[in-house]
């Protein structure tokens, strides 16, 4: 292996990258836009839930109950006294999300019966919103009950303490995930495309007949993308740290070291794919379908792995990002060290070696 040859391949690849400034801008810009979007975009309480009332009672008591809903920042009253036949069209037009039906004998029943039922018709197409509406309505009704009776005394005090992310800010959760996603994207997708491009245009064969060793070719092609990935990761972390004040409690050195390990795994994946496909389109679609989407969905980037059914929880263990997410979130937010994370580092290495093994086998086959 000659360093001069590797260096010239690396230079060639850099020229490829920089010549295509549009792609470069996207590579740099995309994570920044994503951070800004995720940093500002998400709140988890839903406001402005629209509702209508069918008040068959029309008594001071029923009006008082309705006031409980309207004087609440979660609900917005849209219609009073609609007909029952109008409920479904209004749901379908998405004008309202809930209808409260107060029975005719509401006030009498409040005096004579211990429990008076009020119907809540909820548009539960989105189960999440449906649950939300129900819970908030219950809270409003609870307040009403306390007003007409007395406050139910608590027997126990609950003293929750939120660790690591006391304000439960979504940006603290998403930014480390973004690093994982971008590193994977650049390492797996770009390398698989870069190598397949040479195959497709026939230049790979030209290089192969030259005295350059295949390892030098691959190393030379891969190193520029590693630096690109690391650069991108750094940009994300800088933005996160200084614009959104995401804490980095652990060791930066440990982040960098384990990020390199993760990049190695992602590169092996890219190599494995590029070894078996012929065109860039197929390489891209395969990488997209087999690495990027599962990473977004199954690694715990957005949806918690623990809530998935058992087979998927097992599959998620084979996805590199699952481990890297635990590692980077652990280091950044919890400030833990290698000792708490070594199992995940070991899992990453194992996955990486398996992928690399398959990749070299496949490469040998295609070259022969």
């Amino acid at each position, binding site marked *: 292996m000659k360093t001069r040859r590797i260096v010239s391949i690396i230079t060639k690849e850099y020229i490829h990258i920089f010549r*295509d400034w549009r*792609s470069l801008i*996207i590579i740099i810009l*995309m994570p920044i836009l*994503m951070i800004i979007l995720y940093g*500002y*975009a998400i*709140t*988890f*309480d839903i406001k402005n839930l629209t509702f209508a009332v069918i008040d068959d009672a029309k008594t001071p008591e029923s009006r008082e109950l309705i006031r409980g809903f309207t004087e609440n920042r979660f609900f917005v009253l849209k219609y009073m006294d609609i007909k029952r036949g109008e409920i*479904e*069209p209004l*749901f379908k*037009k998405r004008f309202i999300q809930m209808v409260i039906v107060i029975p005719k004998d509401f006030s009498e029943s409040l005096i004579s019966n*211990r*429990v008076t*039922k*009020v119907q809540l018709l*909820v548009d*539960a*197409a989105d*189960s999440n*919103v*449906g649950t939300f509406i129900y819970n908030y*309505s219950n809270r409003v009704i609870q307040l009403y*009950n306390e007003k*007409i*009776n007395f406050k139910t*005394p608590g*027997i*126990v*005090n*609950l003293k*929750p*303490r*939120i660790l*690591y*992310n006391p304000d*439960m800010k979504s940006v*603290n*959760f998403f930014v480390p995930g973004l690093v994982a996603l971008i590193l994977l994207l650049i390492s797996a997708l770009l390398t698989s495309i870069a190598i397949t*491009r040479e195959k497709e245009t026939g230049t790979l064969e030209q290089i192969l007949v030259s005295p350059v060793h295949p390892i030098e070719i691959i190393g030379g092609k891969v190193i520029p993308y590693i630096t690109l990935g690391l650069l991108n990761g750094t940009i994300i972390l800088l933005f996160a740290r200084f614009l959104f004040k995401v804490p980095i409690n652990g060791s930066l050195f440990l982040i960098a070291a384990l990020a390199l390990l993760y990049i190695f795994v992602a590169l092996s994946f890219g190599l494995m794919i590029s070894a078996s496909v*012929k*065109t*860039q*389109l*197929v390489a891209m*679609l*395969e990488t*997209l*379908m087999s690495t990027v*989407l599962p990473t977004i969905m*199954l690694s715990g980037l957005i*949806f*918690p792995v623990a*809530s*998935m059914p058992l087979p*998927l929880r097992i599959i998620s263990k084979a996805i590199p990002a699952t481990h890297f997410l635990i590692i980077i979130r*652990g280091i950044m937010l*919890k400030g833990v060290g290698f000792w708490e994370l070594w199992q995940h580092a070991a899992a990453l290495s194992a996955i990486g070696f398996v992928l690399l093994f398959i990749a070299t086998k496949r490469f040998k086959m295609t070259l022969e």
Partner: protein
Amino acid sequence: MRQIFYLIQKEFRQIFRDKSMIGILFIIPLIQIFILGNAVTTDVKNIKLVVQDQDKTPYSRELLRQFIHSGYFKINGIEEDYNKLSSYLDSGKANLVIVIPKHFQRDIVLGNKPDIQLLVDGVDGNSSGVSLGYVNDIMQNYQERLIEHLPELSLQIKNMHRVEAEPRFWFNPNLESKPYIVPGIIALILLVITLFLTSMGVVREKEIGTLEQLMVTPIKSYQLVTGKIIPFCILGLLEIMIGMGFVYLIFGIGIKGSFFLILFESLIFVLSTLGLGIFISTISDTQQQALFMAWFFMIFSILLSGFFIPIANMPPVIQQITRLNPLRYFIVILREIYLKGTSLKDLIPETLSMITFSACLFFAAVIRFKKKLG
């Protein structure tokens, strides 16, 4: 007409010449639907719980029993040493630690309101919010049951007159997240496949030089564009039909509304993604560039579509930006038709917005395409 027909034939041959395309187009999306349909859940389950019970009385044990009984928690350990508790959270062996203090039972009986300490892993803010909600519910239940054992309070409670909600969950009585999420996945896959196929397909011909060969033939450029569009429309519709059939077979999620309405709306949507795809191909020179542009648009259409994050949860400025996103409308339309059986009449605003986008993107694409070639 014949020329267009030949072009379509050529396009299909080109797509299917690579055998792996069949897998990519028809098999991988099904696997995706299957996995994603199971993975994407907004529910929070299997919360890892570590307990320290310093009291060990019937009351404290009853509280723990309620935690286990709720089905949301999984007890991952019982720790006697207070100083070791945080290490469970550090290593991820616990998401939640609950500490029941000494004299818990005695303090309740005496009315001293004992403190229950909770340590919550707040890394995933959303999930920890939800698990705190569960804890609150459990505590509420627990206290209601305890009150029966405290004579003075229980008498007061018995004399209460209260209002109770009687919920009816329309369109989704069991409050499942799947029927809501799965149609969205179909939309995502349709977007990914059509956008990438067109944007990269056209650039590929450019890169290899076959596009120029086509240009010197007497084919007119509108014929060329039509010849590109029709095969991808057909593929897109095929894709969505297979997707819908699969969703029905695997998840048992059927369409409440009209099947043909879905096809009609899909066609409009696909025209917008194809328009975008061709537009991307006209502004990029290599497949890699096209890939990145397509990727860029894809990520942001998905993020701003309301698929992951409900649009209502976004800040007002970003909510306005989402109006520029055809996928946003398409997902609403699919969900409405799937879950509520909404008819075209009630989907007119969304449909019109999609048509506007499709038309704009399409004309932009055709104009750029002509310019580029002419």
